[in-house]
């Protein structure tokens, strides 16, 4: 019973953090069609923001605004200098952002060196839930992520900006014709997308290793999720995260971690092959 409850909590936790990490890519790739290979680097910048806040010996709470600020600034500069010239050229965005990713990694390496950095746990200890002692910080994280998604879903479906974004995604020409400033709207979407990646990095920093190369892992899993879930909808993102996280958790528990990882790869390949648009496709 205890083992099963732990398994369930782990499953919810993994799905939640996967969804949070992939959210930014879902916006940038799903809505704007930019294959952002630097997505993981924004997660990394967020994690380093948490480290900087810790070194400055101020409350971990400040990591969140700092991470959002840093990734928004980087996102703005990248969109303004490179991305805006490349909309509708998906493959070119892939190459350009891959180059930018290397640049960001190396830049961080110059400033912080290759060493592993340690970001201390903010809320150490465990909480008893369903008869299981579960890490308190993980539970907090799950609640924060649920809040983020609820707010975002409401904003996307109810707000005027959300409406304009949807109009732009469905028919950019028509949207421009009725007076929607597509250039500005794309920029806002891009900056918000990469900022959520930075936020994810700051929130995950106390749980993971922090070094310049962590972005690659997050980039890969984010792409797997979008391949399975499909582009352009929050439902797809959540289903993708659940399938990827769930498969990994179930197979790893029954067999071992290698089998779990392999099953994730096989599922992604099967989707690319048989259902390249994913489960939810709405564009």
């Amino acid at each position, binding site marked *: 019973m205890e083992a099963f409850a732990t398994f369930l909590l782990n499953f919810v936790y993994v799905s939640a953090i996967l969804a949070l990490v992939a959210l930014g890519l879902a916006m940038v790739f799903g809505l704007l069609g930019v294959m952002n290979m630097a997505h993981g680097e924004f997660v990394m910048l967020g994690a380093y923001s948490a480290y900087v806040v810790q070194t400055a010996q101020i409350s971990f709470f400040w990591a969140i605004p700092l991470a959002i600020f840093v990734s928004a600034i980087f996102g703005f500069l990248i969109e303004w200098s490179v991305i805006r010239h490349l909309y509708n050229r998906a493959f070119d965005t892939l190459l350009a952002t891959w180059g930018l990713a290397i640049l960001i990694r190396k830049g961080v390496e110059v400033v912080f060196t*290759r060493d592993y950095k340690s970001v201390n746990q903010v809320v150490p*200890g465990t909480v008893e839930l369903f008869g299981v002692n579960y890490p308190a910080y*993980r539970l907090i994280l799950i609640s924060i992520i649920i809040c983020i998604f609820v707010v975002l879903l409401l904003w996307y479906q109810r707000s005027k900006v959300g409406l304009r974004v949807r109009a732009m995604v469905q028919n950019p020409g028509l949207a421009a014709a009725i007076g929607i400033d597509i250039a500005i709207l794309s920029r806002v979407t891009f900056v918000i997308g990469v900022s959520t990646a930075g936020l994810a990095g700051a929130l995950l920093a106390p*749980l993971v*290793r922090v070094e310049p190369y962590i972005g690659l892992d997050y980039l890969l899993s984010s792409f797997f999720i979008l391949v399975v879930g499909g582009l352009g909808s929050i439902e797809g993102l959540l289903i993708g995260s659940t399938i990827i996280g769930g498969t990994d958790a179930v197979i790893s528990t029954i067999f071992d971690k290698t089998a*779990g990882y392999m099953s994730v790869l096989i599922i992604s390949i099967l989707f690319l092959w048989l259902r390249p648009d994913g489960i939810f496709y709405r564009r």
Partner: protein
Amino acid sequence: MLKNSANVFKEISKNREKSMNSFMKRRDFIKKSLTAAATTAALGGFASRASASGHLKIGVMIPLSGPAGLFGPASKNVSEMAAAEINAAGGILGRQVEIVLGDAGLSPSEVAQTALKLWRGEGCEAFIGMHDSAVRGALINVFKAQVPYVYCPNYEGGECADGVYYVGETPAQSVVPSIEWLAAEKKVKKFYLIGNDYNWPRDTNAIAKETIAKLGGEVVGEEYMPFTVDNFDSSLAKMKETGAELVIITLVGGASVSFNRAFASFGLSENVLRFGTLIDENTLMGIGAENSKNIYSAAGYFANVQTDAAKAFAQGYASKFGSDAAVLNALSQSCYDGLIALDTIAERAGALDTKAMDKAAEGMEYDGPRGHGTMKNRHLAMDIYLANAVGAEFKIVQSFKNQEPGNFCKA
């Protein structure tokens, strides 16, 4: 219509012209590069002959990129420090030493190419290496015992190639006495083995399992993880379920950091011990002070070993490179021992010839930061330290004197 076909024809002939041009260019290019290659080869040959009388170039193969790249800066510093000390004492065989760095953080085939260039092109007459076992295998194939090669870091044991000298810890030296000590002192009976999926963890665990069986202990779990894994929830659940008392960790780098953090966050660190031979100072810093309770590590060197020799070494390092220089650990420090061992063996042999050096290596002795080392079957018998993590630092809890490396050379 006619006009169109004329255009098409023009287009075709233009294209042909273009491809002829590019073909000519390619031929030209090939010719040029052949000339360049020949010149380089000639110069290279000249350079190596010229250096035979002057400086002694030593190829130092350390990770300057890739996942182990974080050990690069300290390894480079330590190698420079050893070279400077050797030179101050008159060099190797009366020749001043010059170290030439090669990146060993790439794939084995690329590192082999780099080493070949340093050897045949730059004229390096000896090599030391601090890199993984796959790269070592590739380099042994390149050198084929024609040039002396000292392998510095700890490794899984089992090698006996000619012309290769091992100064790193083997599992027989570090893992076996540590498990015996932990079993006796901490009364552990249930062991769980977790590592990354390649030969070092598997070979190390094979030896660990022998020791555990001898002690009457029980292996309650054994798992090997792909390198990309950073979620260990299912393994942690199994550790809880099986009631493991000591977890032997052969995860490397980032995987080790993520695992140890998750381990502590589930409250396992309170009652369950952890032991690994590749949990170095840097990995421990990544794991973090609040997650380090009950971590043990064993190696021939730790940054705060308190012997006179080790203290002198650490002070020398700090005064040469500053107090904020790259942190020392057993891996980077092993480059120092590699160069000292090379010097000692070459002086005993009287030449940088692998046949003479293989003979001279047997019974070779020296004193370094790690204490007294004696070479047997081209492996080093040395003192091993078992350390316990206190916060983000290691504190030595036990030293095992003069541990035998094991004999891997079949007569």
